[in-house]
């Protein structure tokens, strides 16, 4: 809670890691040193940094089986890292422009990447090669999502259309002229029937994937460009963020906003958030005010036992309790440079992986965990 910027990340540490050719390996000694440094602090400390990209890392995606981490970068490459050792596994080449998003399909075998070269590529991770190139968009592809079966892919593009692709043969099943401004994010619900799109025109729309019909349009009273959107796990709500530093929790069936998170800063980038299991942070009950009075509503269960990791453009992560909106922790500071902004935050078990407009991917772990492991003789 009380962390400050100067403790993270230490420059000499970075130097050491760079010397080791991008592979992050820390000596026992160094780890101990680091742990000793952070031992006294609560909150999160940097566990390691993944080097390798040359430009900003736009997306970090953890495979469904939690074994691999895929990172996509503006330099046009995808790098796959092992989620166990945080070593670089391989690099996938193929796009000749930057990549905006990378997503794993169910089964952890296939990846899809959306690129500025107006194509989407499907990669076979086992063969380490691209198996499909989906062409058709006339401008950058900004966002993609698989359906749960992995048979369909929905892509949103700056050409203001949403395309639904059949992955079996790589054909475009449907083209939806969805919005009047670039589409910045698409998301498929957990059952694969609904698809939500967010656009810079300030509207979020919900589509029926099968028929291509627009089922609902979520409009906010003030038309602010949206930056991201995602279905919640339980399919009841839609999290929509806009460039007015707000994340709204929409109950899209009843067409009303259940909750607004606005403690972060988000005015320029499309940043993606993630959930973080609350088990990893012991709940500090004294710090919480009574949460019954403020929100006596039904959105209690939308994220069960989870905190929301909300990235902020100043480089911090706000770990927020979604039911009370209380910031549990904001000790993670991705970069010292005020210019660099966060783009993505992903959780991987107890770890939090952040990436931003700098070419580094940083992995954070709760300090408590590190110190505990030190006592247990833990070595990565």
């Amino acid at each position, binding site marked *: 809670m009380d962390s400050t910027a100067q403790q993270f990340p230490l420059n000499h540490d970075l130097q050491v890691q760079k010397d080791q050719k991008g592979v992050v390996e820390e000596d026992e000694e160094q780890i101990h040193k680091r742990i000793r440094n952070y031992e006294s602090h609560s909150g999160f400390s940097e566990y390691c940094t993944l080097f390798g990209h040359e430009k900003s890392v*736009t997306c970090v995606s953890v495979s469904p089986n939690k074994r691999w981490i895929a990172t996509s970068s503006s330099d046009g490459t995808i790098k796959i890292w092992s989620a166990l050792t945080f070593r670089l596994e391989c690099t996938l080449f193929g796009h000749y422009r930057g990549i905006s998003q990378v997503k794993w399909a169910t089964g952890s075998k296939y990846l899809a990447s959306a690129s*500025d070269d107006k194509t989407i590529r499907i990669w076979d991770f086992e063969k380490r090669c691209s198996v499909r*190139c989906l062409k058709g968009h*006339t401008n950058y592809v900004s966002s993609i999502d698989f359906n749960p079966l992995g048979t369909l892919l929905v892509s949103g593009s700056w050409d203001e259309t949403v395309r639904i692709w059949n992955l079996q043969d790589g054909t475009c099943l449907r083209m939806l002229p969805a919005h009047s401004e670039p589409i910045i994010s698409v998301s498929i619900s957990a059952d694969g029937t609904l698809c939500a799109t967010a656009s810079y025109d300030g509207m979020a729309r919900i589509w029926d994937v099968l028929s291509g019909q627009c089922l609902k349009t979520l409009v906010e009273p003030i038309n602010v460009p949206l930056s991201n959107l995602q279905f919640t796990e339980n399919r009841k709500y839609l999290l929509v963020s806009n460039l007015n530093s707000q994340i709204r929790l929409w109950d899209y069936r009843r067409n009303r906003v259940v909750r607004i998170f606005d403690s972060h800063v988000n005015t320029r980038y499309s940043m993606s958030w993630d959930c973080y299991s609350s088990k990893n942070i012991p709940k500090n009950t004294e710090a919480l005010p009574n949460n019954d009075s403020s929100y006596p509503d039904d959105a209690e269960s939308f994220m069960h036992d989870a905190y929301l990791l909300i990235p902020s453009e100043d480089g911090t992560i706000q770990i927020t309790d979604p039911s009370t909106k209380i910031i549990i922790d904001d000790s993670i500071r991705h970069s010292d440079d005020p210019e660099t902004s966060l783009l993505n935050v992903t959780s991987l078990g107890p770890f939090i992986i952040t990436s931003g407009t700098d070419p580094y991917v940083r992995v954070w772990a709760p300090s408590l965990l590190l110190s505990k492991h030190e006592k247990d003789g833990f070595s990565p």
Partner: protein
Amino acid sequence: MDFNTSTRSKSQPVQRNNYKVLYDPELGIKENLGRKIIYRFNGVSKPPLVVRDPRLKNPIYARGIPKSGRPFLKSLQTINYDYNENSLGPEPPTQVFVSNISPLVTSEQLRYHFKSFGEVFDLDLKLNPYTGTSLGLCCISFDKRSSISVAAHSAKIAVQQANGLRFSGKPLSVVLDRDGSLCEEAFKKALNAVEKQFQEETLQKQRFEREDESSRQKLSAAMNEDIPPWRQPSKNSQTLSNGDLQHSKVQNVDQKSGFLTSSETDVPKNINDYIYLLIDDRFVPPDRVYYTDIKHHFRKFLYEKIYMNKDGFYITFNNYREASNCYRALDRTYVQNCRIKLKFHDIPSRTKEDGKKSAVRRVVLPPEEAYAEATSVVLRDLEAALLRDVKSKIIGPAIFKYLHSMPKPSVKEELQENLLVSSTSVPDVPLKIESTVGKLPSLPKFKKRVDSSKMNLSAGSKTKSKLQRRRRRRHEARPLHYQLNQMYNSSASEAESDQELLLSSGDERVERGKIGSIKSVKSDEATPVFSDTSDENDKFHRFRTKSKISKKKYEKMEVDYTSSSETESDASILSPSAAIPKSGSAIKDELISPKKEIDEVLALAPKWRINEFDETGSVYYGALPYNYPEDDVLLDLDGLQYLVKNDEDYSYLQEALKDEPLMDINDPNFWAYERKSCKFKNGDVKYGDTAILPEPKGYFRSNTSGSAKSEGYYIIPTTEKSLYLPLRNRSTIDTISHSTSRITSRMNRVNNRRLAAGVEKSQLPAEADLLRFNALKARKKQLHFGPSRIHTLGLFAMENIDKNDMVIEYIGEIIRQRVADNREKNYVREGIGDSYLFRIDEDVIVDATKKGNIARFINHSCAPNCIARIIRVEGKRKIVIYADRDIMHGEELTYDYKFPEEADKIPCLCGAPTCRGYLN
């Protein structure tokens, strides 16, 4: 007492209960009824008693509804009480017994059917215990748990409705069955019948078997050979003795193929030495398929002969290909409605050991023998191929070269000797060759052509093109384990390779040793398609760059088979024989060389195989390692760029590749970029200046930060949007080009007429318009509105409209300026974004927002096809829209809104080339 009895016997009838006297003659005689007393017993009388409703006597009563409004009952209601525990008597039947069910009907079908009468509780379809088939008997009980009466009712209905119903072809008989006894009985009866039948059947079977055996014995005794009698083409007297049936068949055969003789159709003993197709006897019933049918069936194929015996028909072939073709074409086809299955038999390598019996019978080999056979075949093929290759590639050229350069006679002899040896003793060839070659270093230039890896050439590749063969050789040069070893211990394998594979001596040998290892490493690296960050990779990297020059040299040598490699020059490399295989990339490699060359080269850029590099395919350049198709070609982009240094080289190259077909590569610069970046990503070269991503054609705006996501939010101007949005704003441009391109003859005539009559019109446009307005008031143009590419809705012409024709009048409310101002504000507040106000003059405005015609849908365009004019008709000013040019069917109508200049601009989306960008 006495009196009493006497009176009773005489006058009084016997007093019995339930009697009523209807007529007593003592009370007064009626002539027609006689003198007998008429009784009624139990309500039944002799002349049938007609009970009439006394109420019917009342005429008003019979007429119908009384004042109370409730109709009188026509008959008295009977009261039914539900059966319950208090009811007397047995409970009503709730079971039905269904018989005469077709055996094909399943219980599910029955249940489904009887569900329509009521809830079926239990459905017991009786089955034959021996066969499991339905006996056609079924007991259905309806669900009486909730209410017995309902169940009884449904049972009753079922009997009423389902009895006699044709169900699957047989009329059902449905009977109420109170306790299932009927069903039981019927079932028992059926069981008995079935059992009896079963016993009979078994008896019969036994009898048949006995008969069969005896007949078979007879048959075998009678037969002189293996051939079945009906297949026996010769008119042997023995076949006749085999009974009438067979006799007739034989007759049949003989009638159809009378010319056949036994020697022709007899299966030869050495049938296994033929390539033949076997039609198994099982698939050709002898009484339906005859020799001639088979012959007819196979008439289109060049078979050698058709034999037959009791195993079936044997169709022999001269060559393998024809046989396999035939097999593919005719397997599982129909002969005389019989589906035949062919069995393919190739000549086995083994000599017959099993004697006569196996010669005829052995069609299917046991697996071990099959394997052995297959391996032996493969081995033999390999040997042959190897021999051929050795002859043609190594020894042949060597001899020629040798003869050319006047070698020492002793060497020549040695060579020939070796040749002889190698040709005679097949399996020892590789060793021999190696030894020969080992002795050969003294031969001038010979060593350059020796590539030991050729020896591993597989037999299959002989049919392939030279190119493919070369590629194959590279991949298969060494076994995989060897490559793997090399990967981890490259220096050791280097030495090894020197010893084992390379047969030349001196510096070049060492060089080539390195090359060999590199090559194999590369091909090994080909499998994982990613840049490995392991340490080995680094090693390779260094290693590769070190030996790069030598590699190039090696490649050159390999290309140049015929010329002496020592003195090879650029020109010789580009000689046609050498250039053809590599031409594909060779030409395109030029792309990065001097600019003026690029275009020329492109003109003759040869067509390369579009395989892995096809973007629509499954594999892409980025994913590919070093061995992209041009790998065959030895010289890649950089190599050619290096080679072609001046115009002379270039012209040679052009000449060499004259014959090559052109390849379709979309953007040469992009193509070159792809190749280069691919090479770079595989770590072969540094990312040179030559590999610059060319600007793509068409719209592309590149983000400074690399990707759209990291770029953040920015607004795309609407004018820029029209460049990449396919659906937007292109209508006007397209249609204009269309309309100019297809001017019909009719349009020409119209133009001519217009020219003839157009003078005065041009002089007095206003009056002419007026005339036209009046004249054309009656005839309206066919228009319709629909989604427009310019802005929301638009108006489209549904017919061709000539120039200067009136299109439509702009109709709306005529209001004053102040009202208009007010309304405009209101509209903005209401959210009506579009303006439908048309100014006629200072103070008069036509408002078509709420009241108006479809003319308000006409959009603005900076290059309009219509023009709006204000004309006076009968003292009123009207806005009329005229065609400014000829308008084709389907074109959107536009005119220039001519908005006054304002501070806040409204963007124009007309998409015309001369678009001003704003409406105002």
